[in-house]
C-alpha cells in the first residue's frame, strides 16, 4: 500500500501516449496495473510518472484476419480474450487466460501488461513464444514488429524500450497447442509452466526457469524427445521457497512433456 509520489497522465491516443513517454524518461506505461501497482506498493521500484493506457480505445480489441491471424490489442484484458468469439480461433489463448490469477485480476490485467512485465511466473510469455506470436511496438521512429522469440530481454525487460509502447500482438492461425503448469494451489502462481505448439515442427517454451522463456525444438512431440530437449537445454532455474533448482529442472521436463502431448493430440484431431 502507500505508493511513492508519482505523476500521472491519461492519454486518449497512441501519439499522445508516446509524447508523454518521451516527455519523462522515468515514465512507465500503466496497463492493467495488476503487476506494476503491486511493485509500486512494495516500493521495490517506483516509476516517476505513469502513462495510463486505459483511455486509448485503439489499443483494445481482437480482430480475426482472413488467414486466421488474430490481432489482439495490447490493452485487451484476459477476461475479454476469454469471452471473445474471435479468440476461439486459437482456443489455447482463452484457456490459458482462464488460469491467470482470479476474476478481479482477469478483469483488469491485459495481454500487453502480462508480456511487458515478463515476470518469470507469467503464463503468456512462454505461450506467445510457442505460438510464434509477433509483437508490434511503436516508438518515435515508428512501428516495428518483433517476433516473440526476440521480444523478451529479462525480468520486467522486453523489446519495448523506454519511450516505446506495445501496440498489439499477432497470433497466427493454429490449433495444435498445449499448456501445462505446476501451480501454487489450484490455478495459482506458476512454479513451472510450459506451452507447446505442434504444426509440422514442435515448439515448446518453458516459463519460470529463466529470466526469459526458454524455447525448445524437440524433433518430435513424444515424451522422450521432449525430455531430451529439456535436458539438452542445460537449465539453471532459480531456487526459491516453492521449488529447489533441482525440482524446477525436473518439473520443466514433466510440464514440457505434458504440454507437448496435449499439443500433438490437438494437432492430430480433425
Amino acid at each position, binding site marked *: *500500500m*502507500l*505508493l*511513492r*509520489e508519482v505523476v500521472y497522465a491519461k492519454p486518449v491516443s497512441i501519439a499522445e501516449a508516446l509524447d508523454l513517454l518521451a516527455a519523462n524518461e522515468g515514465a512507465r506505461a500503466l496497463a492493467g496495473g495488476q503487476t506494476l501497482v*503491486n511493485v509500486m506498493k*512494495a*516500493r521495490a521500484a517506483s516509476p516517476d510518472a505513469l502513462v495510463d493506457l486505459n483511455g486509448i480505445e485503439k489499443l483494445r480489441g481482437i480482430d480475426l484476419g482472413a488467414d486466421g491471424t488474430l490481432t489482439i490489442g495490447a490493452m485487451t484484458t484476459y477476461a475479454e480474450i476469454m469471452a471473445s468469439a474471435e479468440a476461439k480461433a486459437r482456443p489455447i489463448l482463452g484457456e490459458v487466460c482462464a488460469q491467470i490469477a*482470479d476474476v478481479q485480476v482477469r478483469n483488469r490485467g491485459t495481454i500487453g501488461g502480462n508480456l511487458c512485465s515478463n515476470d518469470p511466473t507469467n503464463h503468456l510469455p512462454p505461450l506467445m513464444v510457442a505460438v510464434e506470436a509477433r509483437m508490434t511496438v511503436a516508438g518515435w521512429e515508428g512501428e516495428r514488429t518483433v517476433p516473440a522469440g526476440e521480444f523478451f530481454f529479462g525480468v520486467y525487460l522486453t523489446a519495448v524500450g523506454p519511450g516505446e509502447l506495445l501496440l498489439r500482438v499477432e497470433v497466427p492461425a493454429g490449433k495444435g497447442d498445449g499448456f501445462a503448469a*505446476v501451480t*501454487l*494451489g*489450484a*490455478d*495459482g*502462481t506458476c*512454479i513451472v509452466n510450459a506451452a507447446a505448439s505442434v504444426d509440422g515442427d514442435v515448439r515448446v517454451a518453458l516459463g519460470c526457469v529463466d529470466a526469459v522463456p526458454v524455447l525448445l525444438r524437440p524433433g518430435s512431440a513424444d515424451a522422450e524427445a521432449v525430455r531430451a530437449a529439456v535436458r539438452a537445454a542445460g537449465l539453471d532455474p532459480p531456487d*526459491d*521457497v*516453492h*521449488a*529447489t533448482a533441482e*525440482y524446477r529442472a*525436473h*518439473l520443466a521436463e*514433466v510440464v514440457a512433456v505434458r504440454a507437448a502431448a496435449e499439443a500433438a493430440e490437438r494437432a492430430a484431431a480433425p
Partner: protein
Amino acid sequence: MSSSTTVAPSPVQAPQKGWAGQSVPRKEDKRLLQGEGVFVDDVKRHGMGYVHFVRSPYAHAHITRIDVSEAEAVEGVYGTLTGEEVAALTDPFFQIAGAPGGQIKDYSLAVGKVRYVGEAVVAVVAETRELARDASELVEVDYEPLPALVDARKALDADAPVLHDDAGGNLMWHGSYEWGDLDAAFAEADRVVRIEELHFHRFNSTPLECDGALVEYNRGVGQWTIHTNNQFPGFAAIMMGPAMRVGLDRLRFVTQDIGGGFGNKITSHPQLVVCCLLARKLGRPIQWTEWRTDFHLSMSHGNERWFHDTEVAVRSDGTLLGFRTKALDDAGAWLRYEPLGGVIWAQVTPGMYRWRHIRVDFTQVATNKAPVSPNRGYSRMQHLWFTERVIDIVAHELGLDPVEVRKRNYIRAEEMPYETPNGCVYDSGDYARMLDLALELVGHGEIETRRAEAAARGRLLGVGIGSTLDSGTNNFGQSRLINPELQFSGNNEVATVKLDIFGEIVVTLGTTPQGQGHETTAAQVVADILRCSPDDVHVRAGHDSYWNSHAGFSGTYASQFAVTGLSAVKGATEMLAGEIKRLASAVFGGVPVEALELADGGVRIKGSPEAFLPFMACGAIVNANNAGLPEDLDVTLNCRYVYRPPFQVPDVERKFGNLTLTYAAQIHAAVIEVDPETGWYELVDYAAVDDCGSRINPQIVEGQVMGATAQAIGAAMHEVFEYDEDGNLLTPNFYDYHVPHALDMPPLATGAIESPSPFTPLGTKGMGEGGGAGIHAVCAAVQDALRGHGDAIVWDSCNPYRRVWEMLEHPERSRALVSVT
C-alpha cells in the same frame, strides 16, 4: 469439490430444550453484511497522525547511528520516536521467564541492536499514511551487520551468534519433564522405535485483518484510550502498565469488531506502547495500521519446534508404553508470550493415548526471526502433531494398522474422567467412537478399492488420521512450572446482566470476540434463564475496560468462552432472575419467591397468570419508581458475576496438576491423491469429527470446526514462514505465502458427538482450536500414499509439492531418521 455434509450428534443425553442447543442466527451478522462493522482501522479522530515504522532490513546488526532530522523536517510530519527515547521513557517489558530468558531487556522499539528483519527501529508520524511512509524513508539508520542465527539447532553451539548478551547466550528456557517410570517402560518393551528428528514448521493463522490501533491521550487526567483489535487486553495491560510506569486504570482498551485473531493478536503490546508514547509526545491521536508485509515480518509467528532423539517403547501388539524426546522450541528474537509454550503443551502430554511413562526435555532458544506467540492450538498443536506422528511411524515401522494402534491405545470412554500421567484431568469423551465416525465419513471401508482405482490412473492414494485435544480454560498456575516466582493461578471471566429502566435486558462481557458469535450465544443463555427470546437481549459488542465489566483474564483466547464467558453470563443472569423474583414477591405483597416464575418477558405467580409483572415494570420500579419498596429489599437488577473455575495451584516440584478444565476432541481423516511425477497432490475426501460437549449453537460450533480445518489444510500443504540463511523472510506476503482459496478446499464432511463436560455449569467445553488434527491427517495421508514407493517417513509438518517429490525421489533421506530395535 463438493459441499459439506453434517452428521448430527447421536443423543448421549436428553435432547436440549430452550434456546441453548439451537442454531440461532447470529446477532453480529447484519452489521457485518452491510459493511457497518466497526474494525479498528475504521476508527478516526480529528487531527490524528498516522504512524509508520522504520523496520530493520537486517536479521542481526548493531545500530550505530539514527538520524531523524531529515524526516522531521518534512512538512506534514508531526514527529518521530526512537529506541533511545523508548529506553528513557519506559522500562523493559515484564518477563514471564526467570533466568536466563528473563534477563533480556525487551522494549517497544529496537534499542542499540536489531534482532530480526522487520523489527521496528523508529516510528514516524505524519498527516497522511503516504507521507508517514515517505518520511520514514528519510530516516537514516546506520547498521553494523552481525552474523545471523536462523537455525535453532545451532543456537547453543559455542560459535553461535548471541542475540541477547543479557541472557549470556541463546538459551531462553529449559525444563525437564518426567512422569512414570521410563526405565521400566523401556525394559518391558518388545520393540523400541527411534526417530532422530521431527520438525513442526513456522506459520500462523494470518487473520485477514492485521493489527492496529487508534490511541488518544487525555493529558488532563493522564489516561489513554486505546481503540485496538488486541484480543487479550488483560494481558496487554499488565505488560504495558509497568513498562509505561502507570497504573492499569490509565489504559482504557476498547474493541468492537475484530477481523480474526486466532491468538495472533495477543502480543501487539509493543506497538501499542509506541502509539501511547507518541500520542502523549505529539499531543494528538495516533493511528496505527499494520500492513500485511509488516504482519508477516514481525507479528506472532507460531512456535517452530524440533523433536530430537525420540524413543518409543512398544509391545509387539502395538501397545504403547511410553516415549522420551528432546523438544527444541524456536522462540524467535523476543519472548513476547514465551516461554509459556514450554508448559502449555503439557495440558495434553499423552495426547489421546494411555501411555503412562513420558519424558520430555524441553529447551527454548532465541533466533534472529520474528518473535513467536500464540497461534490457534498454541503449543498443544506442536506436541499433538508429534504424538500423532509417533503413532503413525510406529505403526508403519512395525507393520501395524494405524487404526488398530489408535484404538488399542486410546483412553476409553469408561475411563473418563481420566487423570493423565501429569495430573491433568480429561473430563469426558469417546475417541474410538469419533474415529469410527470419521472413517465412515471418508468411506474408509472401500479405501483399498479406491487405492487400486487411483493407481490405475497413475495416482498414489493415501489416507491419514489426525487428532487433537483442544484443552480449554487455562489454569494460569501452570505458569509456575515455567517460573516458580510467578504469582498467577486459576482463571476467571465476568459478565454483567441488567434490566434497564424500560425493561431492556443488557449484557456486557469481558471478552473480545473475533467472529465466534459471543453476542449470539450469550443471548441464548440469557434467554433460557429469563424465559424470553434472544432478540430481547442486547449484548454489547466488543470490549471496553472502562464501561463493560472485565476481569483479570478477560479476553478471547485459549478456547474458553463457552466455559468461562457463558458460565459468567449464566451466573449473572441467575442472580438477575433471583432479584426479579424478590422484587416481584415484594410488589405482590409477600408472595413467596418459590411461587413465582419467569415467563413471557416478565415474572408471574405460578397458576395465576393475571398476576404478571413485565420486565419493563420491574426496571421502572427499581430505577425510577422505588418509593415504598421494603428497606431490606436489596435489588439493583444490575448483576455482575465472576465465574472462577475450580483449580488448584499445580505441584511445581512434580510438574503435576490440572492445567486446564475441559478437553474438546477432534479426529480428522483425510484422503489424498499424489501425482508421483511431480509430488503435486490434492485432498479428495476429508472428514472432521468434533466433540466439544454440549453445544450452545451447533452452527457456530461447526463453523469453528470448518475454519480450523481449513487453516490446518493450508498449514499442512503450503503455509510456512521460511527464512534464508541471512534471516530474510521468503514469504513476507500472500503472493509467496499461499493461503488456500475456494478452489483449494476438498469436499468436507463434518460429524459431531456430544460428551458434556461434568465440570462446567452448561456441560460445554471450550473449542475452536482443533486445527492440529488436520495438519497431522494430511501428513499421515502423505506417508500412506508413499507406502511401497520408497516408504519415506513424513518428518516435517508442512509438505509442499517439492517436499513430497523429494520424499519420492530420495526416500532414503527420511528413512535414515528412523530405526527399530
